[in-house]
């Protein structure tokens, strides 16, 4: 499952494969949940966002066309639309938080930050397991190069060169075309 492309997993989801949905969840739920907390303001609404997005992926997977957009682009759009709905609904109630949300109704991720995050998450999922592991341990678990060396049982020099190779592979994999998302709409 680890090296299966997102687009293949969506095709399996369309066929009713819950395990494929679980695989996509493992790749994107952390980003969705963190996005929800950061921009929607509370953990309960963030959970609702994650649940809504994956339920939508399950229901609409048959309509996903990889020729038109990557899975990351598709799930980004679902997330943005669902987050906007949640904000609209919350605005209809008494406003209880002071933080500024990312999405205002009618706006579409104006900073482009969320779309870039999906792009990077997709690129990360396409790396080899060895490259993904070294970056995940450093960035998502906060381990130092020496700690990664001890944890993986790999010489420190190898960890450093592997980290360099992994960042290079990530850079080559992801698109940095900043205009892609706006022209894609």
């Amino acid at each position, binding site marked *: *499952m680890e090296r299966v492309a997102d687009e293949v997993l969506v*095709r*399996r989801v369309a*066929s*009713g*494969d*819950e*395990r494929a*949905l*679980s695989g996509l*969840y493992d790749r994107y*739920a*952390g*980003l*969705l*949940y*963190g*996005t929800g*907390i*950061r921009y929607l303001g509370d953990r309960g609404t*963030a*959970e609702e966002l*994650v*649940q809504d997005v*994956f*339920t939508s992926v*399950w*229901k609409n997977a048959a309509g996903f066309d990889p020729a038109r957009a990557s899975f990351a682009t598709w799930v980004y759009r679902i997330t943005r639309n669902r987050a906007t709905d949640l904000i609209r609904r919350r605005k209809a109630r008494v406003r209880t938080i002071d933080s500024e949300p990312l999405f205002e109704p009618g706006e579409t991720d104006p900073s482009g*930050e969320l779309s*870039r*995050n999906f*792009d*990077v*998450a997709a690129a*990360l999922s396409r790396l080899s397991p060895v490259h993904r592991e070294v*970056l995940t341990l*450093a*960035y*998502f678990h906060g381990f*130092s*190069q020496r700690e990664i060396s001890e944890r993986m049982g790999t010489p420190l*020099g190898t960890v*450093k*060169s592997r*980290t*360099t*190779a*992994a*960042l*290079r592979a*990530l*850079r080559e994999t*992801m698109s*940095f075309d900043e205009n892609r998302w706006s022209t894609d709409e």
Partner: protein
Amino acid sequence: MSEHPETRNLLGPYVMGALEPQEEQEVEDHLQGCASCREETQDLRLAHERLADLAYTTEAPPPDLKNRIVAGIPRREARRRVPSWLAAVAAAFCVLAVLGAIFTPDLFGGGPLASATLSPTERAPKAGGEVSIQGVGENMEVRLEAWGLPACKHEHYYELWLVEGEERVSAGSFTVGPSGRIDLSMNAPNFAGSYPGVGITYEKDKNPDASDMKVLSGELHEL
């Protein structure tokens, strides 16, 4: 100035700020005289910043959220309820299809693809079974006949999997009563048609992954 290849391998930890002070100084000395490493550093720094942004935003969801989502999704219906007139028309087409299949076996492309004889594990030593797979449009029909299976306890069930290496694709779940016998048809996505193995596990919860309580397994042989 340090050697180029050696320093180039340090550029990743360098842009992350993860080098020891002495190494960092060596890299900076090298960069002053090496345009290609400076260019590489710019590329790696961009990847580092994007990844750092992603890590900053990402947060682990509650451990039970995945199970809650999977438990809450609407199940694909194996058979839809159809109006009686439509059922009659469909039945007529089925008769024609059967006749067609008899006289022109390849016309509808739905012949048996593979079969397997299932062998028991220690969990169900008296169990046995046969599985046959048949292509039907977008999906495959997976036909199971099994016997000698221990009866399911309350809310427990069996699940049939098509297997390739570490991959498992569920063809469906079922329960077994005191007779220990089951004879039913299930569906699996046709991409799993090339999977070489089949197995049945005993499941105690709604975790979408296969449990380690395998009761029957076999190898699929193409027909």
